[in-house]
């Protein structure tokens, strides 16, 4: 009843083309952002460090892949590697120029990833679908090979690992072991909100229309005057930019140190599943997908033992792990059967129903 369109009149074109035409949606979004910031001060360290930071990082990577796969219709299996490029670039930049603030380097590192992504996106003009997936698979393997083989990338570190040095913002440590989960969460949250806002403007504007046109029918798009090469490469570049920033955040603001193996093919699949479950071609879906694939297992890991113990069943960590796999797997299948277009579509349907509730006629 509270959530309805009645009484909200659009008097100009700007209002009509708004992303959130409903006042309630705008208020809700504002509240959620405030709540997200409030959580930094109310949430426990575990919640921030093990749940929210990774969730935001994966959401950002999902947005990246969603731009490519969901909006432009180009299947990519190189996400993990593109994240890696961002992380390694950020490491090189911030160790080479420690005087520049690390936030700058996190944003800049995405450009390296974008360049590499555009390079590996070149075959996309000629090939589509599964064949393109195979071409991006080559990127995955080649880049991973580079991460192992080029010691320059890790400053000749014997252990071959990336580690987060101490970096500060306004005198507060935001990176390295002394940075508290609070500050790191605030940094990640701000970056993710900024980039999500940017992505939202991109996909709802002219560029997004071009991507969608290419996805829906590239031949028709070409006839309408959209240049496929530039558009596809732009999609690859923007997508890789997001993945690159997500990779830098993953290593330096979440793990604090990592090996090349973090950016393996499993990481690529992990992000791809998030995008598919969340909803192709939807920014909200990227968040939903990350929540389902990443947060749900954690919640299950906490809830299951608590649920089983009153019955006197105590199960080992490995059994919980198997149960987690089974339940998450079953839920994925369930959601895909109920709504093949992902969670974002379910959300949309729910909202539409809510708009007319309680008088759906």
């Amino acid at each position, binding site marked *: 009843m509270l959530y309805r369109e009645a009484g909200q009149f659009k008097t100009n074109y700007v209002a009509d083309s708004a992303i*959130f035409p409903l006042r309630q949606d705008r208020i*809700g*979004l504002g*509240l*959620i952002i405030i709540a997200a910031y409030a959580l930094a001060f*109310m*949430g426990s*360290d*575990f*919640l921030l*460090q*093990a*749940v*929210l930071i990774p*969730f935001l990082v994966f959401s950002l990577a999902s947005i990246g892949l969603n731009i490519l796969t969901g909006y432009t219709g180009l299947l990519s299996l190189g996400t993990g590697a593109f994240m890696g490029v961002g992380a390694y670039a950020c490491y090189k930049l911030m*160790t080479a120029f*420690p005087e520049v603030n690390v936030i700058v380097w996190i944003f800049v590192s995405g450009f390296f990833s974008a360049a590499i992504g555009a390079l590996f996106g070149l075959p996309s003009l000629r090939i589509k679908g599964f064949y393109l997936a195979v071409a991006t698979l080559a990127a995955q393997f080649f880049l991973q*090979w580079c991460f*192992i083989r080029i010691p320059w990338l890790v*400053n*000749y*570190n*014997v*252990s*071959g*690992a990336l*580690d*987060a*040095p*101490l970096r500060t913002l306004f005198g507060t440590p935001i990176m*390295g*072991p002394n940075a508290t989960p609070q500050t790191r969460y605030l940094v990640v949250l701000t970056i993710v909100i900024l980039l999500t806002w940017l992505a939202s403007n991109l996909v709802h504007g002219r560029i997004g229309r071009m991507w969608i046109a290419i996805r829906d029918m590239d031949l028709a798009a070409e006839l309408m005057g959209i240049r496929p090469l530039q558009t596809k490469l732009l999609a690859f570049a923007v997508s890789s930019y997001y993945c690159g920033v997500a990779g830098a955040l993953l290593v330096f603001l*979440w*793990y*604090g*140190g*990592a*090996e*090349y*193996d*973090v950016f393996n*093919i499993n990481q690529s699949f992990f992000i791809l599943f998030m995008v598919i479950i969340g909803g192709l071609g939807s*920014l*909200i879906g990227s*968040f*939903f997908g990350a*929540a389902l694939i990443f*947060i749900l297992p*954690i*919640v299950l890991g*906490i*809830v299951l033992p*608590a649920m089983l113990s009153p019955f006197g069943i105590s199960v*080992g*960590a*490995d059994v*919980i*792990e198997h149960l987690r796999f089974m339940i998450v797997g079953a839920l994925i299948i369930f959601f895909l059967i109920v709504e093949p277009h992902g969670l974002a579509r379910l*959300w949309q349907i729910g*909202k539409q129903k809510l708009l007319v509730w309680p008088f759906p006629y």
Partner: protein
Amino acid sequence: MSFRKIGLGLAAATMLAGMALPALAQDSVYVPLFTYRTGPFAGSGTPIADGMHDYLRMLNERDGGIGGVKLVLEECETGYDTKKGVECYESVKGKNPVIVNPWSTGITLPLIPRASVDKIPILSMAYGLSASARGDIFPWVFNPPATYWDGLSMIVKYIGEKEGGLEKLKGKKIGFLHLDAAFGKEPIPLLQELAKDIGFEVALYPVAAQDMQNQSSQWLSARRDRPDYMIMWGWGSMNGAAVKEAVRSGYPIDKFYSVWWPGEDDARSGGAGAKGFKMLNWHAVGTNFPAIQDIQKHVVDKGLSKAPKDKVGELLYNRGVYNSLLIAEGIATAQKLTGKKAVTGEDVRRGMENIKLDPARLKELGLEGFTDQLVLSCADHNGHRAAFMQEWDGTKWVKISNPIEPMTDRVKGQLEAAAKDYAEKNAGWPKRTEACDKAS
């Protein structure tokens, strides 16, 4: 909008997380065990997990814990996955663990910088960052009993002795089959240095992580190059596949040496042809020790263990026991040093630094002859202990050598360079502020 649902989910998750932290009894010591019984490496992870759990459980059942304080054991499943490992760390951090043992180099690396901040020592037993052997730079990290550089120098020394002296290796060719990752590549600089000084030739056979089970190309090259000896730095399914391929390609298996990670199952996969395969090890196999018999009596026979009865005493099971032995000894030493019963992470860090597992103490613990002595100190968090060579006789491991001392002078150079390098690269790496205990 997207955030609304998430917000709800988060609120729920927060509440659950809050509920899930059980109130711990006052007089207890919380020891989380990071294990991997699922996933692609479960084959080697399960016996290690059983060994770790069973030894500490036995202490609980037999002695009521350590020094009269019960140990609260909790396994956290990592699946050998860094993501889950870090999640495990965060979930146990709030319950005041006295020590963590990540059991994966990938998980160890993110934890190293946090250890000093969270005041939780890390025990990465013979894996992780080799440079962390330097206690003055890494006061919170322990990687006894030997580093990979120690291991390599021991194998080369053993081979040299077989030939009749290290100088006899001149002109020989040594193949180095390794996992193409930081772990496998770490010994290469030392191997090359030795090659230059002694005058043998090195042929490298890297195995990419995704090809661990398919090593035909490496062994084909080995067939062409005909190395006189083959040294393996492998892990997970790579070990078993290597033994199998060595047998299949007709490589003389008695010239095939490995670092300490293969288990019985890896050697078995080579069938009868694997007889003669050798590997380094630093602890005994079998159940012929009072403490392990106590495990059988108090834990396994009572059905408190997940281990099948016949797996108790196998190589990797005993490796898990050794890991727990170090944990227990760290706690016991900490109790002795501080006089407290319920020790904290900071106390156990001191305890680990003062570990003194000499033969007398081992006998006291019911593990006489189980392993060589281990003495750690403020500066030395590794021990650089000798390991021995053991050979697969077709059904079990047989110890075939006395303890081989590592070439300390050579290893030291590598170690110091690496530790200095690590601290330099991490500008602002904290100086050690923890006071050293007087050598006890």
